[in-house]
């Protein structure tokens, strides 16, 4: 699989559709010969982007859509863009990343972990907010023998 092919999936912005996105990601990344570990990394990062959209983009009474496009770049890079047309990311949460390292039990909390994981697990993360939010995640496959 190579040469800038794009697969786009549009699903309701609801939690029960995020695993469909993961399955699609698995199919494309496996075909590109990403390793098991690289695919697991991308599954978490892409889910975090989807979770943000599901939780924050839309009013619960009027759920919107989530568009996820997978673009194969060259033969070793996969770019995944997660877009919604709801409330922009910067309006609903600060963009801080945070981990639990060096904190006490009293101090630990889950805020910031999702964004941290996206950045730690992908090579590039870009967040654009305009009419809605677009999170663009890129991962390069580590060099390996091609058959």
């Amino acid at each position: 699989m190579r040469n800038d092919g794009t697969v786009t999936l549009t699903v309701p912005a609801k939690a029960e559709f995020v695993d469909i996105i993961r399955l699609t990601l698995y199919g494309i990344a496996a075909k590109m010969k990403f390793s098991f570990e690289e695919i697991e990394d991308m599954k978490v990062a892409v889910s975090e982007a989807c979770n943000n959209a599901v939780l924050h983009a839309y009013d619960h009474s009027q759920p919107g859509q989530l568009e996820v496009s997978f673009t194969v770049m060259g033969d070793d890079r996969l770019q995944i863009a997660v877009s919604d047309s709801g409330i922009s990311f910067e309006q609903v949460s600060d963009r801080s990343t945070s981990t639990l390292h060096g904190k006490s039990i009293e101090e630990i909390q889950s805020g910031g972990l999702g964004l941290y994981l996206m950045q730690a697990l992908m090579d590039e993360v870009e967040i654009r907010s305009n009419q809605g939010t677009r999170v663009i995640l890129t991962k390069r496959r580590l060099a390996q023998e091609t058959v």
Partner: protein
Amino acid sequence: MQNEKLTFQTENLDGLTVVRIAGELDLEVASQMRSVMEPLMELSDRKLILNLRDLKYIDSTGIGILISIVKARHSRNAPFGVEEVPSTIQKLFDMTGITPFLAASPNA
């Protein structure tokens, strides 16, 4: 009724409750996980262990639930930990920094 995406099997041993969690722990099943865990978190005279051998997926949603269990057990002075963590999940625990909070206290 349990969503088959995530299943729980609870085993009560002497002074110890082990919950085996199998499947995918994501946003869709987060409320199911919370409602299963809440009554178990209250049992402060028992050690609580989550066996994660058959957990296939977790993200910050699930790690957030683990943080709330850590805090609830700590406030009751009750031991809590995880065991048989798959390597892909251990990697996420190490990256986020939750690992040291998931080791059951020895005075169980």
